[in-house]
């Protein structure tokens, strides 16, 4: 059952600026959908369109089966948690949470019961008489969520709710939101620019760019088969290595002369061997992507690189390497132990092998094939 459906939802501001463009999505009941994208991609505007804080320019918004385009925010059955919490500073925590119910003229006993239930769920019973300014960041966050829960909305809307918290608290609240969502079976639309938050929380992930949906799917499907370079860069940390290549018939030729043969295209169009791929024409500009996690230290590896910098993360280390002929560094995530064992330091010459899928994108940065695997590699003789 769909709780929320958007059909070609769009928003054009007065100056003609198109903030949200043709959003099509369906939020299933009990689903946590995370909308992610860089700042200015229209994700917050999209959320505000759903909330009713901005008027919808075109398209349709359906909440709980009824057209909500022209409904007042309070009548849409949505509750929103704001980035800076937007708690009412002159009211106690109890009044903050009870305010919506008071406006609905609910009986006093029901208000008290619902507020207490929500407070117990969030562990803030002891704070009900306090004012917002007497609370810590995490407590304010909880009150803001409590205010939403009390209203028992059809859809929860979260607008970057964790970005004002410190790193440790963010992880904790992230888990709490997830636990809460599962306990309440609530439908949630969650906007963030933090891709770790997005990956860990989402049932489904929506990546937005310039007001449009770039890709929509489960976090792992986006991680494994990004539809574009943009998604590839955005999902996963550290970001995927994207190397400019010229591409023809399954063979990707790197600026340094390295040729990688992949199964990205159909077998019949593929060159017989990597070596005579040069003879085949015409080569097109393309982008080859490989995740840092899928590179390993290998004496027979395809990439001969210079180790430029090491960032130790604890168990792993990030190795920033220079590939001859390329400006962009190649990042590899390697186990710290192997780095130490090989006594590698900045300046070492090493070889890296590919241990995972490759990603090929065309000149428009769109994905070329579902999946590409490295078959063989050779170094061009006319490099």
């Amino acid at each position: 059952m769909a709780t929320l459906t958007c059909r070609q939802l769009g928003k054009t501001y007065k100056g003609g600026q198109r903030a949200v463009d043709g959003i099509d999505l369906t939020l299933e009941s009990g689903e946590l959908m995370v909308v992610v994208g860089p700042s200015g991609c229209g994700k917050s505007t999209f959320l505000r369109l759903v909330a009713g804080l901005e008027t919808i320019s075109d398209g349709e918004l359906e909440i709980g089966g009824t057209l909500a385009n022209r409904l007042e925010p309070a009548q849409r059955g949505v509750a929103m948690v704001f980035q800076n919490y937007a708690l009412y500073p002159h009211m106690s925590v109890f009044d903050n949470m009870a305010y919506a119910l008071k406006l609905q003229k609910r009986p006093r006993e029901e208000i008290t019961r619902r507020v207490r239930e929500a407070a117990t769920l969030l562990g803030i019973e002891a704070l009900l008489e306090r004012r917002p300014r007497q609370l810590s960041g995490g407590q304010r966050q909880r009150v803001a969520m409590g205010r939403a829960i009390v209203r028992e909305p059809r859809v929860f809307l979260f607008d970057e709710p964790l970005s004002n918290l410190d790193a440790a608290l963010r992880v904790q609240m992230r888990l709490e939101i997830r636990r809460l969502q599962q306990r309440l079976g609530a439908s949630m639309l969650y906007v963030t620019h933090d891709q770790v938050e997005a990956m860990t929380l989402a049932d489904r992930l929506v990546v937005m760019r310039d007001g449009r949906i770039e890709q929509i799917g489960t976090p792992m499907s986006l991680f494994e088969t990004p539809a574009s370079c943009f998604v590839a860069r955005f999902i996963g940390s550290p970001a995927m290595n994207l190397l400019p290549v010229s591409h023809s018939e399954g063979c990707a030729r790197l600026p340094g002369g390295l040729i990688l043969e992949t199964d990205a295209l159909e077998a019949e169009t593929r060159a017989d061997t990597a070596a005579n791929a040069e003879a085949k024409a015409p080569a097109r500009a393309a982008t080859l992507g490989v995740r840092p996690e899928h590179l390993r230290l290998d004496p027979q590896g395809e990439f001969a690189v210079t180790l430029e910098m090491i960032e130790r993360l604890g168990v792993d280390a990030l190795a920033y390497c220079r590939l001859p002929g390329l400006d962009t560094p190649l990042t590899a995530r390697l186990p710290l132990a192997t780095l130490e064992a090989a006594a590698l330091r900045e300046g070492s010459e090493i070889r890296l092998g590919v241990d995972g899928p490759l990603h090929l994108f065309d000149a428009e940065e769109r994905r070329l094939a579902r999946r590409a695997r490295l078959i063989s590699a050779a170094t061009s003789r006319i490099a």
Partner: protein
Amino acid sequence: MRYRRPGLDGLTHLLLIIGVVIFGLPLWLALTASTHSAADLQNGIAPLWFGDQGLANYWQLLSQPMPGLGVSALRLLGNSLVMALGIALGKIAISLLAAYAIVFFRFPCRTLCFWLIFVTLMLPVEVRIVPTYGVVARFGLIDTYAGMILPLIASATATFLLRQCFLSLPSELFEAARLDGAGPLRFLKDFVLPLSRTNLAALFVIMFIYGWNQYLWPLLAANSPDHATAVISLKNLVQSTDTLPPWQLATAMTLLTVLPPVVVIVAMQRFFVRGLTDAEK
């Protein structure tokens, strides 16, 4: 930043003391003069210390009709109070709604409206006194409280001040309240009023004093002694043609006239201090 320099401290204290004397001496003279008999004051030299007629003078002032006007001092003070309260509350009510509309509503010519209100800063009652008198007279409001109050209750200053105050409220507050189902008037009552109450208190003090000190407009709008204000009565007291002015009564009335604004300031000071220390916004 505080400078600690003994020489400078002495100098600043000296300046402050001079200031206090300059401002305080006239009040002191009024206070001492109001305790002497009329005969004591006839030579025109103000005594620097108290006489023995204090109680008698104030009793006469409060119990008998004012010479020249034929109305009691209490009536005059009451008239002043009604006018000052009417002006202060009226100004706040009108500018509150105006500023609320300008800040929180998107309507055509919003900025134009704001600047039109702002331009009226250049049109105080002294400038528009003839047309204003004409309008009030035709409405038959001469010699009424309404006629004394209404022409003065539009205030660009207050609108501007409240606009700045409302602009400092975070917009998410408004949006959160909208999602909770609060309409515009509900938002005004539940959020804007409580959150700007310190500013409203400050405005009230300023506007009350403005209203209390009005001279020219009540002089025109209130012809009968029944509606005369305390400030106007002061002039009447010292303007006797055939006898010497009753200076002991004039000075006593002056002190009584000064008193209410002082009370308002002292009473409202609590709010200022709380507004400064209480970072609720």
